[in-house]
């Protein structure tokens, strides 16, 4: 009952609603799976709802939701595979064959970029999408992903370097998969 009190905080609730499409977009950029992105956003908002007493600063609402989304995404990855260590997750690759909507999409360039991003390790992918899509500051990204800001900068740098290469050599081989589900690979 106590948690529900926080629902009376109308401005935060409205802003959460406004943020929903952005959360979906970000989640999609991380997992490239519309249904999963939707689940992640649903979980994120549900968690936000029951934990909103943790939210102190109104301005921090976005970062706070992004960090919950990050936790939901990590929980999902952990539940799927044997990853225990967060640092392993950051370096893993998570990708899938282009889905139907990608096959039929007319915008080749968009697909090329998405494919290139899908080839980035998860940690890099999260950083570059938060910075480029959500225009988060480095310090915000560091808080959201709970890694030092120096790590953010180096991941971003590696991500952009890799992306540049992927885009110049282009795609051809999306990550292999056996059973119709996205593949998580470990990179040493």
């Amino acid at each position: 009952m106590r948690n529900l009190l926080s629902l009376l905080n109308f401005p935060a609730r409205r802003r959460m609603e406004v943020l929903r499409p952005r959360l979906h977009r970000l989640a999609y950029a991380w997992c490239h799976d519309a249904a999963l992105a939707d689940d992640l956003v649903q979980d994120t908002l549900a968690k936000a709802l029951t934990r909103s007493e943790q939210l102190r600063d109104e301005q921090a609402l976005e970062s706070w939701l992004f960090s919950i989304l990050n936790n939901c995404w990590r929980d999902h990855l952990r539940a799927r595979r044997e990853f225990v260590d967060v640092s392993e997750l950051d370096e893993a690759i998570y990708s899938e064959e282009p889905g139907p909507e990608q096959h039929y999409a007319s915008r080749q360039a968009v697909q090329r970029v998405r494919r290139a991003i899908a080839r980035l390790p998860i940690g890099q992918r999260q950083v570059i999408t938060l910075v480029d899509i959500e225009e988060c500051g480095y310090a915000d990204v560091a808080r959201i992903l709970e890694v030092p800001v120096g790590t953010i900068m180096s991941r971003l740098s590696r991500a952009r370097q890799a992306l540049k290469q992927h885009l110049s050599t282009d795609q051809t081989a999306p990550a292999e998969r056996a059973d119709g589900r996205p593949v998580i690979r470990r990179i040493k």
Partner: protein
Amino acid sequence: MNEADTRDAGGISPTPEYLNAFLDGELTADERAQVMTLLESDPAFKARACEMRTLKEMVRGAYGEVPAAPARTRRPALHGVPQALAAGVLLVLGLGAGWMARDFSAAPAGYDRLAGLPDGYQAIALSERVDRDKVILHLDSGEPGRLAQVLDLAEQLLDRQPSARIEIVANSYGLDLLRADVTPLRDRIENMARRHANLSFVACGQTVARLKREGVRVNLLPVAHTASSAINAIMTRMGQGWVYVKV
């Protein structure tokens, strides 16, 4: 930007990290100016910067439109919150086009027209057996206009239906209404309370507790009752068939 290892812009060409920081708006005005100068004088650096800028825009552009989830049965989204209760709360809160509202039915039709309720207010009811003569007015804003508004509304409803029961529930900043040392409307409230036996004022116990934790002295008007929390009071009343109006 205060990482020492990226501060070598004075050298021949900035590091990739420094260029990123520039593109991502992480540099101070001075640092930006330096980079701008360098952009003018160093074509190779400018090419690199352009390339990275384009890359950044491509990433952003790639997710301008993302596919929505395919239609399917949703799994329950609220962990640890009883569904019905949550549904009720969301209904209470008048979360019109909210993200969860689509999962729940809207308020029963017809209760948006509560006798004597002026335009601009929405009445919401939870149960099937609704007693239109019992109304909760919920105030969570401390704006002076709102404080007066909730009293105006109570008076209008009571004028229309003198036997009606009205409960004004104040929480968050709305608690100011009932704080003896803060409210601008003390006389009016006490006057109204004397005239209408069926008008009551309820303060949110959670808000009171929070203010006290923050070191604020909370002195409530003698006419105010304290509920364990505003939402508790609202939920209880709505369960009993009261109509809810957010002021």
